[in-house]
């Protein structure tokens, strides 16, 4: 027998490229999800589909004019520089607030792992409690805090002598960014929490034992192992930030607009359903693309995760 025959076969590729999408169905892995998928189809995909359809038909006096499929409203929107400006603002505000969320959430989730008993419970309650109040109420609270001369923030800073003139925060990008980051923070903390608090401490010990400092261990072991959770949080927070219209509308002021705000205004205020539906189509499809990009970057960075047994 040659030594060639004794060699183990080469490693199997991490992601089989062909037929991979079929596998969960064949293995029965997806069947338990069927009720949820059916529910979503009837109560989410169908209404959204109908709504989006409005952008491609002619509507007269609240009725769809039969057989009137048209790309005209969509093409008009795409050639409108205002739409592109709105989309750009939606994007960068969401992206900036998502990154801020990650930077703020990671230490909290990390600290949670080293707390015990009642402190752990208290922190968890503190993290999820914002989710128990309505986003509208919380946004109004920010109005009170950030608002003009008599806002809590400016009054405190002036009283402390840090500033002489009130800061103009409300009705700027900053207000939107601050509000969005605070309100969406739990969506970033929760996925990180699960992974960071359940992590295997022996890996950190192994890293220390091999001579790595605590900082090196953090960046070479803890962070890479939490990549799946990081990207889950990024995708989640980006999606809710990109499509949120309440926060930009209230904290950004009357002249501040994003793609999501425009969808709201066109459908509810202006009652131009066609334009509203076209903008909604753009909002949803770009959101989908961005989330897809985030998720696929995440899985590229954690390909080792695929082989976990």
């Amino acid at each position, binding site marked *: 027998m040659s030594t060639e025959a004794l060699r183990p076969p080469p490693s199997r590729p991490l992601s089989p490229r062909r037929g991979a999408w079929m596998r969960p169905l064949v293995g029965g892995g997806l069947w338990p999800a069927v009720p949820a998928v059916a529910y979503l189809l009837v109560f989410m995909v169908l209404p959204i589909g109908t709504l989006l359809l409005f952008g491609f038909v002619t509507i007269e006096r609240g009725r769809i004019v039969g057989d009137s499929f048209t790309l005209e409203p969509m093409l008009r929107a795409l050639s409108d520089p205002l739409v592109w400006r709105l989309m750009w603002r939606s994007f960068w505000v969401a992206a900036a607030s998502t990154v801020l969320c990650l930077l703020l959430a990671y230490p909290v989730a990390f600290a949670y792992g080293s707390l015990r008993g009642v402190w752990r419970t208290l922190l968890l309650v503190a993290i999820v409690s914002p989710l128990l109040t309505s986003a509208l109420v919380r946004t109004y609270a920010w109005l009170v805090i950030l608002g003009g001369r008599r806002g809590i923030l400016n009054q405190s800073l002036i009283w402390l002598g840090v500033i002489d003139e009130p800061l103009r925060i409300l009705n700027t990008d900053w207000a939107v960014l601050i509000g969005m980051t605070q309100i969406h923070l739990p969506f970033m903390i929760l996925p990180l929490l699960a992974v960071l608090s359940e992590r295997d401490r*022996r890996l950190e010990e192994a890293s220390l034992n091999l001579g790595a400092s605590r900082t090196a261990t953090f960046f070479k072991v803890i962070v890479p192992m939490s990549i799946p959770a990081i990207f889950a949080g990024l995708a989640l927070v980006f999606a809710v930030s990109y499509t949120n219209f309440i926060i930009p509308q209230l904290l950004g002021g009357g002249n501040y607009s994003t793609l999501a705000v425009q969808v709201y205004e066109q459908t509810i205020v202006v009652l131009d359903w066609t334009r509203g539906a076209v903008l909604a189509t753009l909002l949803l499809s770009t959101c989908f693309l961005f989330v897809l990009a985030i998720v696929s970057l995440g899985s590229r960075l954690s390909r*080792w995760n695929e082989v976990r*047994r």
Partner: protein
Amino acid sequence: MSHLVIDNVSKSFGELPVLRGCSLSVEKGSVLTLLGPSGCGKTTLLRTIAGFITPDAGRIVVQGNDISDMPPNRREVGYVFQNYALFPHLTIAANVAYGLKVRRTSRAEVARRVEDALRLVDLSTFADRYPAQLSGGQQQRVAIARSLVLEPSVLLLDEPFNALDARLRLTMQIELRKLIQRVGITSIFVTHDQMEAMTLSDTVAVMHKGVVEQFGSPLDIYDRPRTAYVANFIGRANVIPGEVANGHFDDPARIATQAPAGPAVLVVRPENVTVEPATAGDAAPGWPGTVTFTTALGPTVEYEIDCGWPEPLRAIAPRSPGRPQAGPGDRVVARIADPAAAVVLRRQDGAHVH
């Protein structure tokens, strides 16, 4: 001065004392084996040496330097974890390279040393796989390679061979032993396997309930166990209760002893017991009894004899086809073949007497 000294180390987890005044010393380049039942504190002791646990009392000294307060990443004490603790997000090669990269070793040297280490554990072809794609035994070898590649001055191995099959285990033991000798690594092994302890180590420490019960060369511990517990843990032993009076154990063989008068136990290895058929008028002192069970093992036969004690007396005698052999129900007399090899120990309250 020994290379590694563990001086009176104690540790409690809450109310539970896990290490109680453990003292050990290991010479440079020699191998110490920690033997003991599950839960006796072996892993805790190793973790204390590696710096993951701060002892409540006592010192750990390497080459004359007290390292008790040194952070684990500065100790240069290799540790092979009981559950391997391989980094799941790194390939096998990257796992082995981890410590070298942290030390900013040059790329070429990292590649060379990783290759050598993987060749040593016979895993060169697996370099690009991830730990989850390896069997338990293969992962164990990666864990060993990952520590060895750094050539630490002290190496701690927590049951490093428990997932390997018998043949690979032997190969690994020999290879590791050679490497330890060549590089001069002072090492401590934890094992449940007494054979492994005998073959691998220069010294053996038997732990029991957080205490080092005996510490010495393997044969010394086998021949002169200091407690009944040790006698039973290293090899098998008959522990026969009795009394010491006038410098003799009060038993048919009247074995001389230095032990003080009072309750005592006699420790006799099964191979030191001879079995003969009971014949009337037999003068030589012995224990009469009835054979209850025999196991023929080819070259030897093992008897269990009921002598009226709570535990049967065990004896191992040579066997050959021509020779008559006692069977269950036979009346026999058991005698100690070599009184000098039997050990008399004081019977302590709470001491394990089997």
